[in-house]
């Protein structure tokens, strides 16, 4: 992973960050020092709005570590963000595919993780 310019939830900050390629316009979520589509270096880091649509859900009922077991059941979701990239996060257990959602942040197993709920 290349050096972060904007701190995000993976570093314990309340933010979702993506990269925008100035050359081909691709928006990517996993941070790299280059655009994974066209290879041009230094895509621009931007803070996402935290809004999106639920793409998939899975309610975890069997966890594998004592830290995660304390949170069971927890809902893992894939969200298609309004900026156009897909991300994994937590979500309310009543979420269904296609729901419009917004992100907040919650502690989970000693970390801060994005957690989506239905948009008001």
């Amino acid at each position, binding site marked *: 992973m290349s050096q972060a310019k904007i701190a995000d939830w*993976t570093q314990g900050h309340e933010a979702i960050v993506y990269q925008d390629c100035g050359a081909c316009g691709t928006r990517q979520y*996993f*941070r790299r020092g280059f655009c994974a589509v066209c290879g041009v270096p230094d895509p621009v880091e931007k803070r996402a709005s935290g809004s999106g649509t639920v793409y998939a859900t899975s*309610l*975890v*009922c069997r966890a594998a570590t004592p830290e995660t077991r304390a949170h069971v059941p927890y809902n*893992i979701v894939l969200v298609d963000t309004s900026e156009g990239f897909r991300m*994994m*996060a937590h979500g309310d257990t009543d979420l269904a*595919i296609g729901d419009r959602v917004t992100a907040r942040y919650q502690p989970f197993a000693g970390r801060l993780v994005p957690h989506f709920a239905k948009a008001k």
Partner: protein
Amino acid sequence: MGFITGVGLTSYGKHEGSSSLDLMGRAAELAIADAGLNRAEVDGVLCGYSTVSPHIMLATVFAEHFGIRPSYAHAVQVGGATGLAMTMLAHHLVDAGIARHVLVVSGENRLTGQSRDASIQALAQVGHPDYEVPLGPTIPAYYGLVASRYMHEYGVTQQDLAEFAVLMRRHALTHPGAQFHEPITVADVMASKPVAMPLKLLDCCPVSDGGAAFVVSRERTGDTAIRVRGCAQAHTHQHVTAAPRLSELGAEIAIARARASSGMAISDVRYAAVYDSFTITLAILLEDLGLAQRGEAAARVRAGHFDRDGDMPLNTHGGLLSYGHCGVGGAMAHLVETHLQMTGRAGSRQVRDASVALLHGDGGVLSSHVSMFLERVG
């Protein structure tokens, strides 16, 4: 042209006190004897990996332990697709004249060698270390995500998925080496403990001890020859977050390439061996491969299409779901069973016609794919 000249398979389940090397050795001995060879004739070794006993040079460790000095040896790691990826490589190695008899071997004491939590934890690491793993997903959760989307797009229900677990269990009942011997019903699957919804315990393959091996040779060593007619791979992503649309998954790409390289069509296939880590895996792969129309695989299960005496017998040993899953060896059991079927040695499980078989393996979260056609000649 690579021929599968011998196969070996241990029972799957608990092998208390056996190491990964023990299980590899047992399967290797069976496969070499089945090929009518002695171990000194093996000049190539390809092996998988062991999560219980990780090693940076497992093939060499195994060769020394087993007492052979191959001219070509290394491990291969493509998750659940490893067994078929090794077979594909062995086929090309013998075809290119690099080796004459390649031993493909894997075994792991995954059930008794570590706790279930440790297995689940080790496997979850296929997720992205920064963007996925901190969220506490498990392998069933990665596939649970795929399942929820597939069910949403194609109208597949949890009851539909349960049919695949019931089918694999029915097949396992006829194999003495299978991990599970109790029949199950759709209601049993539906009532089993939730793991990562929509997947429940009986939608998931077990953790097992076991070993599997085969020999891939440049020439046939027996009367009945089973040869690799064609094979191909596709790798579209590693992490489920980065997976393409369901309509663009790697299985469809791999099978199209394998069809092109072999000149075979799905209508030529008489026996199918398809990766079944979860019920959803089997449902998606059968439909991606063209063995069922989109959203209709479960209906075909209900109609008996994939039964031993059906039009397309599938995983007649019980698959990962019910024969068991010991890591790389898990899907290699599919090939062992296919070979027994193609050579008419499957006993009470024998199907009418297994002259042409289609095998498919999947690693990661539908990330890496290998499709392979085998045919009987002579």
